């Protein structure tokens, strides 16, 4: 997450440097980078929940079968 924010800041700074749009590039870059970092965290959390739910369902099903037996 920090890496994405930093990268956004650097890219914004680069845009400022080449196009002379200071300070807009770096300001928008930091916000965009932070959003990208949040997005990465959100995706990671989502995939983890999916996995946990899958495992839960499997163990639940296995338990169900055991009960039936």
């Amino acid at each position, binding site marked *: 997450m920090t*890496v*994405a924010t930093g*990268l956004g800041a650097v890219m914004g700074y680069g845009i400022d440097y080449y196009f002379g749009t200071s300070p807009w590039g770096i300001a928008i870059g930091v916000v*965009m980078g932070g*959003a*990208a970092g949040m*997005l990465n965290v959100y995706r990671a959390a989502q995939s983890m929940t999916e996995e946990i739910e899958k495992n839960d369902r499997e163990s639940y099903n296995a338990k169900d079968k055991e009960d039936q037996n």
Partner: protein
Amino acid sequence: MENPLHHFELHPLIHLSVMGVDISINKAIIAMWIGLVVVFGLFMLIANRGTQMVPGKLQSVFEIALEFVKGMVDEFIGKEDGKRYFSFVASLFIFILTCNLIGLVPGSYTMTSQIAVTGAFSVGIFLMTLVIGFARHGLHFMSILVPPGIPKVMIPFMVPIEIISMLARPLSLSVRLFANMTAGHTVLAVLFGLAMSASLWIGWMPFGFTVIINGLEIAIAFIQAYIFTTLTCVYIGDVIKLH
């Protein structure tokens, strides 16, 4: 007391220069060669001896390692698609693990504590995922920049965000491995410096810690190699499945 970062410094052992490009041989390059020789030698040893139905000690270690990588590839890339990338991911895992472990031998060099090395790995992987994506999906691959199910108004905002989050992947991949290896070895060096500079009646304590941290470092060598290869699998799987 010696500078704890001293052992990361590289000094050329043999000066070489080809057409103005400095390719001097230093400790890191020799450590890398040793890593290559160890990996290649061990695998060739098993291959030449012929694989047995009832595996010997060495064969079963390598079978476990490869089965482990196979499980990772199957989970993140997919059973069918994963077969094509298995050999790449397996060699990556075993090479990084060997380099991490070679660094723990006293007097040798941790190749993965150079960001140039980890950076080369991760940039290579990043370019590889781009090539795989374009080869599989053609120009439709660009839709990876637009997450599914977002309103049209959001697209101009999401595209730069997705570009940043994609570019952040190789960066964090390389920094993670490099920082973990560097930090671990610095801690070892600091503790050992304490042990050497203190008198014996208190010096045994930091020395004991170096022994414990060394054990921890072996675990970290395995964990970081595992994380690096898992994330490689995740990134390859992402461009293959495309959402």
